[in-house]
C-alpha cells in the first residue's frame, strides 16, 4: 500500500478532495444546499491551478446535467453534484444520460424535496431517480464517500457497465459533519482511476455518429434492453474493482453490509448514516442476549436481491427503515426488500417503517422500539412512522 494520510474532513470535502485527485476533464455544476460545497471547493481548485479541469458555471441544474452529457458524449471524464429540487430539475435528462451510456459520476447529497422547502436529509430526492437507469450507491460516512467516488469512476467507465453513477450521502449529517478520513496519495488515485477510453466519442470527426435519434417502435425496445445489460453487469464488475481498491485501502464494502446478521433472529434493514445508530443498538441488544442484526444496503441500484434474500433467509423478522415514502404505495426500500424476499420458500415477516423525513433524526430508542415490536411479534400491514407527532388514538396504535 502506498502513502496515505488521515485528515479530519466532511463528506462534501472528502468528495471534493477525491474529485481533485481524479482531476476530471469537465465539471458542470450548480449550487444547491447541502451539496454546494462540492462545486464551490472544486471551483477553488480550478482557480488555483490544482486541477487541469474546466468548470462550467451553468445557469441551472438542468443545464448542468445537459452540459455533463454533452461533455461526456464528447469523450471527456465528467463529474458533478446536486441535491433535492436540483436533482428533480435534472430528472428529464437522467434517462438520456443513461441511454447515451455516459459514465458521469454524480455526488448526490440527499436532501428532502419540496414542498415545503426543507434543507435537511431524507432520500426523497434520489428515490424518484431509481428508474432512471443510473447506478445508486448509498454511503454511511465520509470515508465511504471518498472510497466510493474512486470506485464509481472505474465502475461507470468499465466497458461492461458504461452507466452513470449516483454516489449518495446524507445531507448535513454526512456532508457537513467532520470525521477522520484516510486519503490515498494523489498518485495512488491516478493509478487506480486511470484514463477514460470513450466509446463513440462525438469529437471523433473521422467516424461520425449521431446520438439521440428519433426511434420508432421497431427499434426502441432492443436499444433499451441493450442498455439494461450494463446495469446487469454492475455487481460482478464492482466485486473486481472493490477487491482491487482493497489492496490500496484495506477496505472492501459489499453491496449489502452484513452487521452481525448471520446468526441474528431479527434484522433491521436501513441505508446511509442512520445505520450507525442501528448498529449501536444491535450491539446493545446483543449484550442483553438478543440476537439482533442489521443489513445496510449500499447498492440500491442495481438492487442486490439475491444477496439480501440470502442474508434475510430464515430470520424471524425483518424491519425496513425507509428515509422516503412512495406516497400511495410501498416505501422504496421496503418494496425492494419485500420483492427480494418473495423468492424465499419460507416467508419472513417484514414491517415497513418510514423515518427521518425532512432531517428528523433517528434515535437509539427508536431503533430499539423497532426491535422490541418484532420480538413481540407485532407486525402490521400499514407502514409505521418513527418519531412522528400523532394524536393519541388507542384504536389506531399499530
Amino acid at each position: 500500500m502506498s502513502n496515505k494520510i488521515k485528515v479530519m474532513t466532511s463528506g462534501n470535502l472528502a468528495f471534493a478532495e477525491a474529485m481533485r485527485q481524479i482531476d476530471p476533464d469537465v465539471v458542470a455544476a450548480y449550487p444547491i444546499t447541502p451539496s454546494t460545497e462540492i462545486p464551490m471547493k472544486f471551483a477553488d481548485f480550478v482557480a488555483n491551478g490544482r486541477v487541469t479541469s474546466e468548470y462550467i458555471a451553468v445557469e441551472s441544474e438542468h443545464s448542468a446535467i445537459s452540459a455533463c452529457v454533452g461533455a461526456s458524449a464528447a469523450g471527456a471524464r465528467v463529474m458533478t453534484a446536486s441535491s433535492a429540487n436540483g436533482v428533480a430539475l435534472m430528472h428529464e435528462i437522467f434517462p438520456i444520460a443513461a441511454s447515451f451510456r455516459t459514465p458521469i459520476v454524480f455526488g448526490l447529497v440527499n436532501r428532502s424535496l419540496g414542498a415545503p422547502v426543507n434543507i435537511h436529509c431524507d432520500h426523497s430526492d434520489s428515490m424518484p431517480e431509481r428508474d432512471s437507469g443510473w447506478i445508486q450507491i448509498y454511503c454511511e460516512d465520509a470515508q465511504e464517500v471518498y472510497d466510493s467516488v474512486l470506485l464509481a469512476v472505474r465502475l461507470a467507465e468499465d466497458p461492461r457497465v458504461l452507466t452513470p453513477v449516483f454516489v449518495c450521502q446524507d445531507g448535513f449529517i454526512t456532508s457537513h459533519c467532520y470525521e477522520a478520513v484516510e486519503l490515498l496519495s494523489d498518485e495512488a488515485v491516478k493509478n487506480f482511476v486511470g484514463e477514460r477510453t470513450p466509446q463513440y466519442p462525438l469529437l471523433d470527426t473521422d467516424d461520425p455518429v449521431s446520438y439521440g435519434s428519433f426511434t420508432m417502435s421497431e427499434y426502441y425496445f432492443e436499444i433499451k434492453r441493450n442498455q439494461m445489460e450494463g446495469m446487469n453487469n454492475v455487481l460482478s464488475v464492482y466485486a473486481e474493482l472493490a477487491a482491487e481498491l482493497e489492496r490500496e485501502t484495506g477496505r472492501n464494502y459489499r453491496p449489502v453490509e452484513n452487521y452481525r446478521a448471520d446468526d441474528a433472529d431479527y434484522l433491521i434493514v436501513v441505508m446511509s448514516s442512520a445505520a450507525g445508530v442501528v448498529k449501536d443498538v444491535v450491539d446493545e441488544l446483543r449484550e442483553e442476549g438478543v440476537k439482533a442484526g442489521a443489513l445496510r444496503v449500499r447498492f440500491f441500484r442495481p438492487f442486490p436481491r439475491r444477496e439480501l434474500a440470502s442474508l434475510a433467509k430464515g430470520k424471524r423478522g425483518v424491519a425496513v427503515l425507509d428515509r422516503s415514502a412512495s406516497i400511495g404505495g410501498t416505501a422504496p426500500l421496503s418494496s425492494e426488500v419485500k420483492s427480494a424476499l418473495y423468492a424465499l420458500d419460507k416467508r419472513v415477516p417484514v414491517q415497513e417503517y418510514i423515518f427521518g423525513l425532512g432531517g428528523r433524526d433517528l434515535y437509539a430508542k427508536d431503533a430499539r422500539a423497532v426491535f422490541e415490536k418484532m420480538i413481540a411479534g407485532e407486525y402490521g400491514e400499514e407502514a409505521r412512522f418513527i418519531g412522528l407527532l400523532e394524536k393519541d388514538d388507542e384504536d389506531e396504535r399499530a
Partner: protein
Amino acid sequence: MSKPQSWQEVPPGTVAFGASALKVQTGLWRSSRPVVDAAKCVSCLKCWIQCPDDSIALGSGGKVEGINLFFCKGCGLCAKVCPAGAISMHPESGFAHEEQRDGEHPGEVGAHVK
C-alpha cells in the same frame, strides 16, 4: 444496418452511424418530377444552392447534369428559382412506364433532356 437487430447487436448509446440516411430513397415521395432542359441551362447553380434535398446532380466543374431522382421529393423549388426557365415540373405518373426504381443506386442521375 437497416433491419431491426437483436438487443445484443444494437450499437450502444443510441448511436446511429454518420450519413446512413443516404440509403433512404426519399424519391419515392414524388408526385411531380423536375426535368432539366440542357439547352437552356447555364449551370448558374441557383437550383443547386436552393434545393432542400441537395438533389441537383452536378458533374465536374459544377455543371448541372440533371436531377438526383433517388432523393428528389418533387417540391418544384428548382423550377421556380431557375432564371432561365430550364426546369419544368411534370406529373410523376407520366414516368410510370419506366422501370421500378426500387434499389436504384443513390446518386444515379436521371437527366431527362428534351
